[in-house]
């Protein structure tokens, strides 16, 4: 390799700067914690609940007190979670899915309350994912006013990307 070539060095330097910018951009993506989606008073109530008991009948969950955090509307970031497909196209791509904090948890743990579920309908269906694998789901959180039996709004997200979560 000839080290005397000036234009080649320029190329190497610009490549390094580009790589640096990319990793800086990555570092700027805001991480969203699942607990941020729960109002503080509900979090306090959850902390006072008894520890999961693996004996006896589980208590049916009461979600009438589950509310979203209104300030999370419009927040852009990424959240680690599990993808549950709702609608799958004929080409085996997912056109609608839920993002949940855990999946396949033992039956004694209540299912996620509405403020721990994010509904996503991407503009273009995404490639099929592993149900039991965790992913970084990046996008903009939105609060939709949906008429449901609980009469509350719920989280949805404008999707930017889905990448596998690796440790």
């Amino acid at each position, binding site marked *: 390799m000839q080290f005397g070539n000036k234009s080649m060095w320029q190329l190497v330097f610009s490549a390094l700067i580009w790589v640096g910018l990319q990793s800086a951009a990555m570092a700027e993506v805001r991480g969203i914690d699942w607990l941020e989606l729960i109002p503080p008073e509900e979090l306090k109530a959850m902390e006072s609940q008894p520890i999961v008991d693996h004996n006896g009948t589980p208590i049916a969950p009461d979600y009438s007190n589950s509310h979203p955090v209104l300030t999370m509307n419009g927040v852009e970031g990424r959240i680690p979670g599990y993808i549950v497909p709702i609608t*799958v196209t004929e*080409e085996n791509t997912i056109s609608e899915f839920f993002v949940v904090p855990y999946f396949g948890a033992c039956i004694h743990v209540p299912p996620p309350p509405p403020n721990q579920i994010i509904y996503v309908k991407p503009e273009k269906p995404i490639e099929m994912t592993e*149900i039991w694998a965790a992913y970084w789901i990046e996008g903009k959180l939105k609060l939709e006013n949906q008429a*449901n039996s609980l009469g509350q709004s719920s989280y949805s997200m404008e999707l930017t990307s889905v990448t596998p979560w690796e440790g």
Partner: protein
Amino acid sequence: MSALFRLAWASLVNRRFTVAVTVATIALSVLLLLGVERLRIEARSSFLRTVSGTDLIVGARAHPVQLLLYSVFHLGDATNNVGWDSVQRLATRDDVAWAVPISLGDSHRGYRVVGTTSDYFRHLQTADRPLAFVQGEAFDGLFDAVLGADVAAKLGYALGDSMVLAHGTAALNPHQHDDRPFKVMGILGRTGTPMDQSVFVSLQAIQAIHLNWRSGTRIGNAPAEPTAEQLQPSSVTAVFVGLRSRMATFAVQRAVNEDRNEPMTAIMPGVALQQLWSMLGLVERALQLTAACVVLAGLLGMLAALLGTLSERRREMAILRALGAGPTTVSGLLLMESLLLTVWGLLTGLLLLYVLTAALMPFVLQATGIALDLGWPAASEWRLMGWVLLSGVLVGAVPATMAYRRSLADGMMVKQ
């Protein structure tokens, strides 16, 4: 380049018989490779288009995949039934928008009979499209039946025709409900799903024809005018559920799974389907690997054929060298020949695939419910063909290199 092409073509045509056998080998292996891929894609999309628009499927406690298979695809049998009061409790929940129960267990000349409500035709969809009637309408009277497209076509039924249902799912069945024939009231359009091979009747009709059956055996004739009480279903096989809001999916699913009155399982169809595919994934892999090995075998056959003739063609190479061809041209000739053989093999294999698909389409549909497609090859199929082409050229590099070395060594003199 074109001179090389013409030379290679002429050379191959000169050895017609060997060439034909080699091309046939490659063609058959390509047929297998593409056939497996096509079947895999069609089976998957056939299954995927069947499950559409339903939020939850509820049945007696069973493995999710098993429940999916018998309730939607009519493959296998139910483990147990769901009691009518559980169905009512489910249907009257605040978060449930609609609930369509189905009752399986009878058949008509091998086609499954589905007892259900007229809501079935209003709510159930395939490929995101609602069910459409090409003739007639949903059942109205007690003994009215609606036929799926294939049932009407294969058995030649028209509106107003009479048909008799059989007890159980065997195609040739001695247990006929011939005391209560049904009238064809409607015929559905093609969906490319198991609905095409189903006969739909009302839940009350299923009750009515079984009124005189005890422990699976018929005693006498069914009562002529059954009362409403007699027609009340006591249990169903499964329930398709649509929710008012998607966000309630997990809560309703959990409520059904933990119901203390009756052991039931609620599944999200999309999730259960993915579980099915992960189970079948191993089989798919094995099939693809086998097909790839067969292609390799075909290409090695081509290698054997090319290598075999190399010695005989020494004089031919010498003549070419004498006429001014360099060693690169000579080896290029062999590369071109292998390329041509692979291309011919690919095209013949593709042609065979289309011919066989066209010929076997109706049988495959009848036997498995999978609708084969005669369209352009899919992206994955193009990729596979690309790999075959590349492999063919790589395999051709072996005799090409040998020819290069030999023609260098031989020069224009043939040592024989």
